[in-house]
């Protein structure tokens, strides 16, 4: 990437309202690698693809279109750091482009509300912009504090990758891009069982059936811990919530502190490698303490 590009930063719900530390790391890191963020004023819930779309699809389509319209009016594409929001926007755009009558339907809902919307806007995940536009070589050049010796488990999540027909990745399975981005920081991406499995949070399952949801997270955490990793790296605010909160719940149920795996969002890991201070990346505000991990990294 030779010049910086500006995106409308779509926050969603979980990131600004539950994990502002992740939001902080994104705001600190992206401009440093040539991605400028402009706030999307007045945006709502994306709305969530597993819940609101499951309750009333036309409402989901209309509210998603309104968020896209805000970016269209601002003259930028949307950038998001949540796989769920990403899925909502990608599927909404596909639906509107493949079925023009759905766009007309949305425009009818908007009538008289002062929302101009043609559907001529795109939505990208920040990891997509980092991988394709910034690139691995540039990331390697910018690294000031290589995270050598750090062993991490990469968690891609689901809506970032699927449905593969409507995603920009070169592969449809066994993806490598996030592993490569992690390795560009000097850390090692460790293989573990069922790496591409869901975190268990989506589809309204966490909200309505917590035992099933947390058990899916437990299985992933067990697999990561069996591989002997120092942290889990994710790129989705909802997966992030799931791994942070589920460990607390599991420890409470077990009556022992078995689950203590630090959960880092990719921009927090990258920020450390760029030489930023942990406080700039919100790393002092984690549910599962990052203290030991940080003293290892910073002590080196």
């Amino acid at each position: 990437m030779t010049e910086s590009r500006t995106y409308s930063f779509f926050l969603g719900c979980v990131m600004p309202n539950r994990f502002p530390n992740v939001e902080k790391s994104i705001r600190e890191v992206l401009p440093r690698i040539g991605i400028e963020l402009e706030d999307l004023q007045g945006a709502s819930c994306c709305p969530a693809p597993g819940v609101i779309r499951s309750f009333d699809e036309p409402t989901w389509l209309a509210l998603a279109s309104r968020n896209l319209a805000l970016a269209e009016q601002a003259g930028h594409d949307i950038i998001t750091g949540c796989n769920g929001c990403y899925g909502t926007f990608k599927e909404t755009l596909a639906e509107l482009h493949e079925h023009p009558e759905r766009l007309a339907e949305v425009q009818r809902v908007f009538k008289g509300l002062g929302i101009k919307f043609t559907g001529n806007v795109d939505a990208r995940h920040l990891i997509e912009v980092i991988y394709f536009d910034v690139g691995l070589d540039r990331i390697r050049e910018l690294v000031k504090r290589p995270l050598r010796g750090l062993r991490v488990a990469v968690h891609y999540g689901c809506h970032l990758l699927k449905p593969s027909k409507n995603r920009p990745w070169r592969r449809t399975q066994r993806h490598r891009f996030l592993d490569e981005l992690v390795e560009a920081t000097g850390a090692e991406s460790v293989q573990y069982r069922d790496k591409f499995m869901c975190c268990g949070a989506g589809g309204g399952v966490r909200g309505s059936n917590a035992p099933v949801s947390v058990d899916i997270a437990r299985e992933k955490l067990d697999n990561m811990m069996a591989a002997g990793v120092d942290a889990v790296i994710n790129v989705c605010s909802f997966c992030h919530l799931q791994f942070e909160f589920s460990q607390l719940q599991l420890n409470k149920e077990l009556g022992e502190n078995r689950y203590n795996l630090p959960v880092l969002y990719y921009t927090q890991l990258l920020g450390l490698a760029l030489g930023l201070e942990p406080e700039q990346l919100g790393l002092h505000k984690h549910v599962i303490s990052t203290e030991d991990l940080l003293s290892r990294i910073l002590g080196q």
Partner: protein
Amino acid sequence: MTDSTIVRDIIDDEDIDPKFVDTLVEAGADRIRTCIQCGTCSSVCPSGRRTAFRTREIIRKALLGLKEEVLTSPDLWLCATCLTCLERCPRQIKVTDAIIIMRNMAVEEGFMLPQHRKASRKLIKTGHAVPLDDANREMRRELGLQEIPPTTHSSGEALEQVQEIMRRTGFIDLIESTEESGQ
């Protein structure tokens, strides 16, 4: 042991709604009739791995037209929408889409889990299914972020617009007027 210990599950004609599958196809699950019941969907399902939820069973029941049984089943809400079944289906059936379509039909008939109604009410009230709370407001301030995010949380005008959209699509009526009991 008497015969009464053996319960035969018999499907009565009145349980079958032959139009059910047509509705699913029209709503976007266009290849659902090509299902060969291979079970790939169930075998890759992370929820099915630890519960009795079987995606294949839901699809089979849908194809049989057992509308009421499918729409009232709590299993319908165990799908985490991970989309793995949709990716792997050898018939390229949009399995996840089919589940979402059936969930929409269930909600329309009043079958909605209480936690989901609660999340919907938050969306209606604040524009967010997960709204800001005091602890995170404080954390935002400590981190040097705008204390109230620049979303519907900080714009009454934006929130009113979002609420008007939900009024026009019928979402507010759907959440507020459907029966509280549901499942």
